């Protein structure tokens, strides 16, 4: 699609195609959550949602866009056995 647009009008066509593509995508939802969620309808970037994912024992909060009943999924020190064992 972009190739045809590029043939027609150079980078103007590609920019137009990208713009319309982005507009259509931003309307979509995946399982009820909008597509570009943490960035475009700006919700607080909790630590789980960025480029890097934390290790399993550090994921203490659930994602904010899910609108869960309990936002915390683990307590602060989840590996209690490790601490108590010392």
């Amino acid at each position, binding site marked *: 699609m972009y190739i045809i647009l590029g043939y027609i009008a150079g980078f103007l066509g590609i920019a137009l195609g990208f713009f319309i593509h982005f507009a259509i995508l931003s309307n979509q939802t995946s399982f009820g959550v909008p597509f570009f969620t943490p960035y*475009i309808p700006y919700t607080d970037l909790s630590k789980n949602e960025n480029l890097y994912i934390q290790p399993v024992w550090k994921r203490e909060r659930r994602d904010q866009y899910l609108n869960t009943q309990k936002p915390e999924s683990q307590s602060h020190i989840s590996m209690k056995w490790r601490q108590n064992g010392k």
Partner: protein
Amino acid sequence: MENNFYQISKYEAIALIIIIMINKLILNIPYYIIDLVGSGAIVNIIYIGIIDFIVTLIIVKLLKRFENSDILDISEFLGGKILKTLIGIISIALFLIVSFITIVDFSNVLHIIYFSDFPIIYILFFFIIGILIVNFVGFKSIIRTICFVTPFAIISVIVAFFTIWSDLDINNLTPILGQSYHQNFIVGLSNTFSMYIIVYFYFIKPLLKDSTGYKKIAIISYIISFILLLLTVISMLTLFNTTSNSEPINSLFLLSRQLELGTFIQRIDALFILLWIFSIFSYLSFVVFLINRIIKKLTNISNEKMLTFPICSILIGLTLIPINVSQIHFIESTLYKYLVLGFMFGISLVILILANFKKAKQ
């Protein structure tokens, strides 16, 4: 009026206003400021920035009594349907003229620089088709694409400023007060049209999810837009002489042609043009959406999305009027300037003040 469309949050509203400002910067508005007052542009802009900030605060204060209403609802409250229709027609005319100037100016820039083989009507068609399709998708997508484009557009303006920071020549910025006191402060008062975003402060209140945050949105977006305008004007002043006789087609583009980050990054203007195409698309779609909404308020049509077809046809007709660049410059420097000034400070302020008196009596 029922709000059966997407409500926008605080960040989205701020991004919306900033993208409007950036579009004005792309379209050579700083050039007209510098043309009028010469090297005193910095002092002039700070002076009109303060004046416009006071006007913004007045508008926010006056709109406080009217929850969730824009200028059309207030004019209906003040003078009935006649005044509402009048204000509606004036605002539609304003937005139509602004959007047609935007399209024609930018298409001419693209035509001269990149697409000199095509007739200009093809480039115009491309913009119109983009607006058509995106308006049919919906308001939500317009706002979200604006949120996506705005950070990049801000970064492009700031990068343009910082790469010429090393070439900053203070002598180009002097004499500080420009040609003369009279020219700078009295004739330069007409430069208040550069903060065009104030027109949109009249219209966005009903779109907001939470109208109590209106004051914060207005102040933050005004300050950021003002800083961007100041940076652009400083960069243009340092690079271009104020006494030369030639009229640049698009000053920001010429500025970006001369930017160099070392020997690796040269000719950033191609990337900038891409960003600016995005910002102009998003801005134009939002303006057409506003026009649709105004017509819907005036006439009670149920499906306002179909209105994009006649609006776009009118736009095509309007864009074919100017034949060459000098006509566009004439329209921008006289018709657009005084129309915006009249609407911003004339009619709307008077209506707001009178409506506040009327409400205070009740």
